[in-house]
């Protein structure tokens, strides 16, 4: 070990900024270099996504346990979901992930018009997703399939009373005991998709802000971190849906 100094002393030369070169305006002053800032913020975003993984992890655990326990109820419950809307929503969300990725690319290559367009498309697709989700939710509300609020077992104990679904799947009536557990399915359905939708709503709100700032040209001068990190968030929400879709909609679609 060499014996050179640790260059710290009781000197009071505060603010003696060791400015070895000009900093871009968006560099926070406690970082030494802009690379350090970008590295740090992107790493922080990844760590935040880890917490999100674990947050949804609790829901997935609950889902897996009850799906194993009450498989017939989960099948009957999933038949109540509209596969057309579900698939459409998956496609919408994947496309929005694509436009978001394009937005990041536009920011990186400093294409302001492209960035604003991509972000607007992403926001639009996000809103379409939420719109479709609300159509699906209202179907459940009409059929009294919201747990805890006058939950109705009729579609499960007497499937023929629900011709729309019955014509497709010809479900056998469930015993009352098992039919009651469809409430658990819908409880998890609403908890999981609701939590996902909440993330979408937050994402859309941030997107609005991003569009506003992008319009002002804030992200096309080299400061891409915020757009990139939001992109990570948006793709993460997409991934959650990629798992929710088969788990909730596609349990067993064959007759």
């Amino acid at each position, binding site marked *: 070990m060499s*014996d050179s100094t640790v260059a710290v002393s*009781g000197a009071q030369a505060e603010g003696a900024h060791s400015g070895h070169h000009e900093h871009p305006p968006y560099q926070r*002053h406690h970082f030494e270099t802009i690379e350090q800032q970008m590295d740090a913020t992107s790493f922080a975003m990844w760590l935040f996504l880890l917490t999100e993984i*674990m947050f949804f992890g*609790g829901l997935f655990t*609950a889902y897996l346990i009850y799906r194993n326990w009450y498989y017939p109820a989960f099948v009957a419950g999933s038949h109540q979901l509209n596969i057309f809307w579900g698939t459409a929503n998956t496609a919408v969300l994947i496309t929005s992930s694509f436009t978001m990725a394009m937005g990041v690319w536009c920011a990186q290559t400093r294409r302001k018009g492209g960035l604003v367009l991509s972000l607007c498309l992403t926001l639009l697709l996000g809103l379409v997703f939420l719109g479709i989700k609300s159509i699906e939710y209202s179907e459940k509300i009409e059929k009294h399939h919201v747990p805890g*609020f006058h939950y109705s077992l009729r579609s499960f104990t007497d499937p023929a009373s629900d011709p729309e679904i019955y014509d497709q799947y010809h479900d056998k009536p469930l015993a009352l005991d098992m039919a009651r557990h469809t409430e658990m399915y819908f*409880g998890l359905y609403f908890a999981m998709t609701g939590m996902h939708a909440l993330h979408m709503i937050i994402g859309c709100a941030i997107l609005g802000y991003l569009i506003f700032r992008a319009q002002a040209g804030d992200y096309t001068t080299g400061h891409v971190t915020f757009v990139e990190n939001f992109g990570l968030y948006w793709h993460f929400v997409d991934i959650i849906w990629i798992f929710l879709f088969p788990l909730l909609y596609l349990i067993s679609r064959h007759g």
Partner: protein
Amino acid sequence: MSSSTIVSLPDQSTARIPKVNFITKENGLLSWLLTGDHKRIAMLYLASITFFFAIGGALAGLIRLELLTPQSDLMATDTYNKVFTMHGVVMIFLFLVPSVPATLGNFLIPLMIGAKDLALPKINLLSWYLYVAGGILVLYTMAAGGVDTGWTFTTPLSTHYLNTNVLSTGIAIFIAGFSSIFTGLNFIVTIHKMRAPGMTWFRLPLFVWSHYAASILMVLGTPVLAIALVLVILERTMGIGVFDAAKGGDPILFQHLFWFYSHPAVYIMILPGMGVISEVISTFSRKRVFGYTAVAFSSVAIAVFGFFVWEHHMFIMGVSSYSTLVFSLLTMLVAVPSAIKIFNWSFTLYKGSITFETPMLYAFGFMGLFTIGGLTGVFLGTTGTDIHLTETYFIVAHFHFVMVGGMLMAFLSGIHFWWPKMTGRMYPEKISQLAALITFIGFNFTFFPQFILGTLGMPRRYAAYPAEFQVLNVFSTAGATILGVGYLLPILYLTWSLRYGEIAGSNPWQATGLEWQIQSPPLTENFPEIPIVDHDAYDYDWLERKHEREREVTSV
């Protein structure tokens, strides 16, 4: 021998606190409330956790007072339930979890690694505001009549059988949890990305290593608690059924999710304390911590193993006996890294030049009490003995030995150790040594009898108990009074020292950490010039050489 000391203070007649430092930089309440400076945020945290510690302590006092007699005479039994619940909630979520990381960690990590601040100063401030928001909600809960689920929110008690303020407490813990997540996230990013040139991973002080390990637990564990609480809230408000046996749900699932966080949470609480002890033991025995690498990796090992043992909280709750076997074995394994630490600290002491300043006294207290607390944990991790001992006072004694005897001792040790750095002034040595002694004696009087009570079969969480347990309970309550004095003293003399303490100078302990090489209190951005590190942690020879060089410079 007891007169020997390493304290070296500047000449008091000429010494002054540096005019420019992070405290004097700006004035006014707003400059504190909107600050991004990690040191100021640490001070905000210190004030707020002390406040909540006082509340939690007062509640503990009420519990011990009630248990002075076998009947429930001081308060009604349901009031007692609320008191011990609030004691647990306040102490765990508002004191123990943030105590060392959010105050000392916040203050010291950037200093120790040679950075100007934490990587995300605004997130750091946000985390304090979330903490305060959570704290205010807990205060609201208390004002609104409290909650009596126990700090564990056990279902179905919390979802179906109680009509107390479960919702507001749940939301409070949810919010406070995010405060902890953001602190942990900030630490991990800072330790990875903000180290000064030359500060390699194996030159980091062990304090930083243990905070790194604890931060991993905060980031990965806390969200699971959050979702567990969200599900409890949904269960209470909408009845979604996941924890409702009547709807086919499993109340034990809640416990899985809850303990998936709350067992690692024990390590979130103790690991930063272990970091403090490493620093203190090394400084006051003038030796590099024995087996530095082993101690560093044992922190990470505790963090990793910490995720594999949660079910030992649930052995008697109807979980599978096969998974019980696995979890019991894994629980034994987690004792290994803890033991590595204790052994290595002991070897560090061996042939060291030990001095007995207050931080060292607390550190000794930690080592003894934590060892007892840890070993009794092995009894509880053993499936057979667990059935007899769990839910009795044995378990109360066990976790108070770890949390109070371990963590609180470490916290006090650290506060005394870095007080000169944080404030620029020394605390009064003699009275603080007395306080350390009082705390140790009071602690043992309070909690040791509870081991015996538990073994004899006194269940926890009841306001009344059979008369034959009274003698030991009186011991315990008397001890709690002594302990109370032990905690009151530091609050008084540390406040006193803010104005009247001796000027500490930059390095009163002759310690090697980077934080000791700058003025106390430090400047707003810590280092006028980012240091270049060329020596390992705890290199006392390096410090000698540095002093020699400085002497040469002055003599020239």
